[in-house]
């Protein structure tokens, strides 16, 4: 297409957006709302993933050492644990430290049992597996080590339930997210399709007086691009301010345990998905839905 055609397309696209103000605003509005929903949902989902990972990292177990274990047994146990490929963290907790903690919970009620001679608690290792879901198998394995009295990891049922819940939450949020993404694709392309349909007469007349397909498509593509870009930029800006404010609120209320992902990395993720979705669909939608009318 010669330069004249390109320029004509730009002018024509802008004029057409202005001429069909109502439609342009409505289309952009649909894209904005759709991507806003999708984006805020992505924010939530990213943070759910983040929290899930954090929760899994906190899954620990305790290896209690047999009171009668020999020094060699203790030493080989320590070496085994430290070099174990499946463990992310290994920490020794002496019987004294354990009693301290008990006292912290039960207070003075166990005060009488704090001296070393009376202390009924064993020495132990607190360990954290790399893959939280492996905890049951790991416990079985470690229990068979010499010098190990018992391996405890919270209630087995509780741990399993926790994983199940996390799986369900992830599944649901993934499903909703996938649904929203499909909705977004469907809506944006359908909106553009209707827009083109309303102008089918115009398109056909252009063909009848000798316009090439690309000459007709080009302004529509630009229009789709403008609608898609605005439709992606506005929700991104809105989400940026919203999320930034949320993080600020969390920090100022000392709710740091909520553990939100930092603003820049989240926004990067959003930009990566929303911009191509908005502009890509705008352009592709125009192209595909035009084909029918351009074939005359």
């Amino acid at each position, binding site marked *: 297409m010669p330069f*004249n*055609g390109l320029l004509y397309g730009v002018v024509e696209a802008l004029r057409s957006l202005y001429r069909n103000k109502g439609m342009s605003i409505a289309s952009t509005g649909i894209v904005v709302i759709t991507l806003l929903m999708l984006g805020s949902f992505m924010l939530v989902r990213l943070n759910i993933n983040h929290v899930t990972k954090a929760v899994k990292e906190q899954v620990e177990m305790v290896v209690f050492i047999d009171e009668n274990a020999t020094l060699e047994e203790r030493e080989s146990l320590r070496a085994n644990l430290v070099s174990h490929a499946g463990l992310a963290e290994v920490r020794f907790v002496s019987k004294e430290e354990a009693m301290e903690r008990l006292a912290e919970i039960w207070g003075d009620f166990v005060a009488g049992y704090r001296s070393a001679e009376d202390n009924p608690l064993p020495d132990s290792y607190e360990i954290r597996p790399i893959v939280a879901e492996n905890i049951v198998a790991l416990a079985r394995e470690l229990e068979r080590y010499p010098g190990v009295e018992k391996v405890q990891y919270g209630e087995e049922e509780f741990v399993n339930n926790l994983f199940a819940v996390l799986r369900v939450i992830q599944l649901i949020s993934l499903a909703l997210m996938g649904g929203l993404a499909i909705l977004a694709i469907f809506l944006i392309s359908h909106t553009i399709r209707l827009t083109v349909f309303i102008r089918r007469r*115009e398109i056909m007349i252009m*063909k*009848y*007086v*000798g316009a090439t397909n690309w000459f007709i498509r080009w302004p529509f593509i630009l229009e789709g691009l403008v609608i898609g870009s605005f439709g992606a930029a506005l929700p991104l800006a809105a989400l940026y301010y919203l999320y930034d404010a949320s993080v600020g609120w969390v920090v100022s209320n000392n709710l740091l345990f909520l553990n939100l992902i930092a603003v820049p990395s989240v926004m990067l993720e959003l930009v990566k998905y929303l911009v191509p979705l908005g502009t890509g669909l705008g352009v592709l939608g125009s192209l595909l839905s035009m084909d029918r009318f351009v074939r005359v």
Partner: protein
Amino acid sequence: MIEAIQLYQRYNEHNSFILNDLNFVINRGEFVFVVGPSGAGKSTLLKLLIREILPTRGTLKVFGQDLTRMPRRRVPYLRRNIGMVFQDFRLLEERTAYDNIAFVMQVTGAPAGEIRRRVPQVLEMVGLSEKIWDRVCDLSGGEQQRIGLARAIINRPAMIIADEPTGNLDPVTSLEIMNLLRGINIRGTTVVVATHDREIVDRFRKRVIYLEDGRIAGDEQKGVYVRAI
């Protein structure tokens, strides 16, 4: 310029043929009226010439090219060489007279200055200088028809095809418009006009092709509206 050989056309399998075994040649620079009763197939014939529809059977050559074999992407270039006035106008209703006419120059990549110069010129020729910035939907029936004609002639095409170009015009304006077409024809452009305007046909004494029920019932040089039997 135009050559039809055993040309047949029907819109669907169940119907009879709308055009039935047409054979004719129109040479460069000719001025031809196509006449016939309502529903005879005049518009169908003209639609074939710009490849709006493809013939069901037979050969149709325009500018020496066989339209039945023309690849789809060549069609726009065919249409740029033909200025067509449609019976139902086919104007962009919401756009101005200027936009409607300028568009066909933009299609060919004409420079902006040239467009700004030519559009008022042709509007002047059809007597609508005042209406240049009016939207087409705000014009009268006859004014719209003349916008259609202005659009057809602006690119100085090699051939002008006009389907009933004076149906909405009073006799005086009709004559002016037809004289305009005659002037263009004298400078070498082929002109094909489908019309019901007995006055015009009788006055012009040009070649007349008589269509009746999809067949060529007559083809006379210097003919009049009613065929000599």
